[in-house]
Every structure is written in structure tokens, then in C-alpha cells.
């Protein structure tokens, strides 16, 4: 499985409010570890670490984790989740997209303050979730190029997407500062538009591989709490220019509400250096 490490420097000048990075990359299912240094306006430099990934324990059963520690905001501090997920689904060449269902259960660790300025509390909450995931990929543009003495079909523009709808139980701090478990419906969409005319240098006995030169990515997520009618959304967009197959520079902007407390509005622009370790 591919591991992606991102070391990021989030410049204070680009952060208009409280620096509360939603550090984990949306829509990516590979293992990810990010180490961040950032400086909120009128504050000192601080560090953060984020990680997301899964490991298959047995066929269709995965251990999944997500952690985001170090980013701070008014109410929600840090969180991490560890769960077991059972997956099933199908792929077919007769359908325009493929699907899978993921059923999860586990524990979520939350650090949160009931209100601004209150003491930070640690909570460990069980959660359950069900997710329907639709996914697809299409080459939008291809070209025939001469490579190593013969023609080859090269994808130049590719569109990739994931649409999912999840139901999840989660403990959340209500507007009246009371904590209770709620059921959240979270439809989301992630899309990538990739320009991939580049390929690794041909060698005598090894076929070159295309790699992403430019990746534009966007995510739109709704977090709707069942019962009290509260709903918030966030969006996330990034553009990455890869200098090589493994190194690139990413500009990313996200804003909105990212966690189940639905209290902290986050708005961050960041510039990141990206390393992919295969």
C-alpha cells in the first residue's frame, strides 16, 4: 500500500482566523502521515501530526484509523478514531460506476472544551457507522504518442470521483454546551481532475509509467445531525503540481465545519510540499 507523507508549512499570513487545520486529506484511502508546522495569527509556531489509513486483517475486514492531533480551535481540539470495518461491493465493466458498502464500529477519542475558555476534556466514545460508496474513473482525453519505437496510448486528462453517504453515531457538544450522542448523515463528494501527460524515463527493459503532473481536487461534505435539525457543510479544494512522480507542491484551501460538534468554523489556506514514498 502506498504511503504518503506530507510535510507542510502553513504560513501565518495565509490564515485569516484561528489555525485549525483539517489536516487529513479527504477521499484518499492510502496510508497517510502528515507532519505540520504552522503559526496562527498572533500566536507562536506549533506542530501537529495527522494520520489516516487502514490495514486489512483478513479478507474484507480492515482496521482503520484516523487521527488529527495538534490542530486547535475554540471547542474541538483533537480527535482520533480507531475502528473495524467490514466491506463488500462489486465492480463491473457493464456499469458506469462501481460500489461498495463499509460497516464500521470502534472508538473515537475526542479532546474538546464545552465552551470557549473552558477546560479541555478527554472523551472516549464508541461509534457505529455505515457508508455507501460509489466510485468511478474516466480518461477525458487521450493521445497516441511514439514511445520506444512504437505507438502507445497515453491518457492526458483523467477524471476520478467518489460519492458516498454515511450514517454515523457520534458524541457531540450541543449549542447549549450539553454533550450527547447524535446520529449524523454525511453525504460527500470528492473529485480529482488530473493532467497526466508525463511519464517516467524509458529504460531498455522496463516500460515507463505515466504519473500525475497536475492534480486538481475538490471535496464537498454535508454534516447533518438527526433530531435537532442542525446541519453544516465544508468544502476543500487543492491544486498539486508534481515535479516528479514522487514530489510536488500543493496549494490547498478549505473552509467550513469539519467535526461533529458543529461549532468551529475553520478557514485555512496552506502551501505544502508533498513527498510520496512508494
Amino acid at each position, binding site marked *: 500500500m502506498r504511503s504518503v507523507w506530507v510535510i507542510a508549512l502553513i504560513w501565518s499570513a495565509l490564515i485569516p482566523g484561528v489555525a485549525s487545520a483539517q489536516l487529513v486529506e479527504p477521499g*484518499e484511502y492510502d496510508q497517510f502521515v502528515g507532519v505540520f508546522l504552522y503559526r496562527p495569527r498572533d500566536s507562536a509556531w506549533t506542530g501537529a501530526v495527522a494520520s489516516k489509513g487502514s490495514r486489512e486483517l483478513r479478507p474484507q475486514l480492515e482496521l482503520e484509523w484516523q487521527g488529527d492531533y495538534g490542530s486547535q480551535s475554540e471547542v474541538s481540539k483533537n480527535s482520533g478514531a480507531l475502528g473495524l470495518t467490514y466491506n463488500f461491493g462489486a465492480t463491473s465493466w457493464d456499469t458506469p460506476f462501481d460500489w461498495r458498502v463499509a460497516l464500521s464500529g470502534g472508538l473515537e477519542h475526542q479532546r474538546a472544551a464545552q465552551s470557549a475558555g473552558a477546560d479541555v476534556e478527554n472523551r472516549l466514545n464508541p461509534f457505529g457507522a455505515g457508508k455507501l460508496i460509489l466510485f468511478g474513473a474516466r*480518461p477525458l482525453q487521450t493521445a497516441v504518442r511514439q514511445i520506444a519505437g512504437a505507438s502507445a496510448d*497515453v*491518457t492526458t486528462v483523467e477524471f476520478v470521483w467518489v460519492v458516498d453517504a454515511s450514517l454515523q453515531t457520534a458524541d457531540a457538544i450541543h449549542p447549549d454546551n450539553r454533550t450527547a450522542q447524535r446520529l449524523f448523515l454525511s453525504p460527500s463528494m470528492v473529485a480529482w481532475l488530473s493532467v497526466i501527460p508525463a511519464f517516467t524515463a524509458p529504460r531498455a527493459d522496463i516500460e515507463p509509467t505515466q504519473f500525475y503532473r497536475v492534480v486538481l481536487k475538490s471535496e464537498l461534505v454535508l454534516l447533518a445531525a438527526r433530531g435537532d435539525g442542525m446541519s453544516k457543510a465544508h468544502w476543500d479544494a487543492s491544486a498539486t503540481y508534481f515535479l516528479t512522480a514522487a514530489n510536488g507542491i500543493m496549494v490547498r484551501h478549505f473552509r467550513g465545519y469539519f467535526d461533529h460538534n458543529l461549532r468551529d468554523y475553520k478557514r485555512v489556506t496552506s502551501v505544502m510540499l508533498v513527498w510520496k514514498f512508494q
Partner: protein
Amino acid sequence: MELPQYCAYWFVRRRLGVATDNQLPADDPVDPTVDKSELAASLATAVNRAQMRVWPHVILVDPVRLGSDAAQWKTVFAVRDALLLSAYSPEGADVKVPAAFADYIVTRWIHRYVWKVDIGVRPLDKPLPNNYGGQEKRLLAEALNATVHQCGLTVNAEAALGESGAWKTVATVRQTYLKHVKSGRD
């Protein structure tokens, strides 16, 4: 039948009007009304357009050689065998020509499942899409295993599923199937 034979069979079947590449092969008689010289010419054109490779060598079909015995073709398998025999590498005799056919049919299956496209010219290797995690790769392995069985071939399904988590590019998926697909019934 093995992967190269199945690929050659599919090229023949497609010229005869059956486009699917996931069906059990059948040694049906060639319709006597089919112009076999024209069939040979169109087969050579189709294969040469595909630019199949045993990397980096391109594999071509000599239309003259293929058409030389066309009048004798009675069944689809006979056309298939003639197609394989007429394929060659312009770079020399050391190239394992049938490997290009195996490479092409597996590449074709992968692109149909992942990108929902029918390939023509053999595509250059590229990464699996950004939305492919471990479970998506597992679903792809299950689908490819099913396709191999539908085609009358056998595959070490457990080995393919086991390797699926490490797939990153089309080439790595293809390598799994070139390694684990065995010959099935002829």
C-alpha cells in the same frame, strides 16, 4: 488454451462480429460466406493497430503470411492459430511473441473494469486512480478472477487477491495475472 491463445481468439471473434472478451471460447466453424482473404487483412490491421508489446519490442502481424493459408481455415481456432503463427517482432527472433498477446488481453480487462473503456492502441502503464484503496483493489481482483474463469482459464485466485493490496499501477495488476493465470480447457 492460455492467455495468448485467448487474446488471438478474441481478435478473430471480434472480426467475425462477436465483440465480447469474457466468454468461453468455442471452436465454431467459420461461416463459408466469409471472405477469408479479407478476414486475414482485417485481422492483421487490427493487431498492428494495437501496437502490442513485449517491452520494448512491438509485435506485428505479417498480412501476407497470415493470408497465405486463409483458404484452409475451417474453424475459429484454426484462424486463431494462424494469427499467432504470423505474429513477429521486427527486432528479431528472440522475442517471445505470444507474451504480447497475453499482455494485451489482460491490459484490456483492467481498463474495462477501472476506466470502463475499450482499448485500441495498447496504453502506456499508468497509476491506478486516486480513489483506489485496498478494498477497491480487492474488488478489482475478484472481478478479474471471475473474468478469467468465464474465459475458460484458471487462476490462482487467492494469490491474486493476496497481491492486490500492493497494486499501484496497471503494470503491477497485469503482472499478477500474467503470473497466476494457468491454461484452461482447450
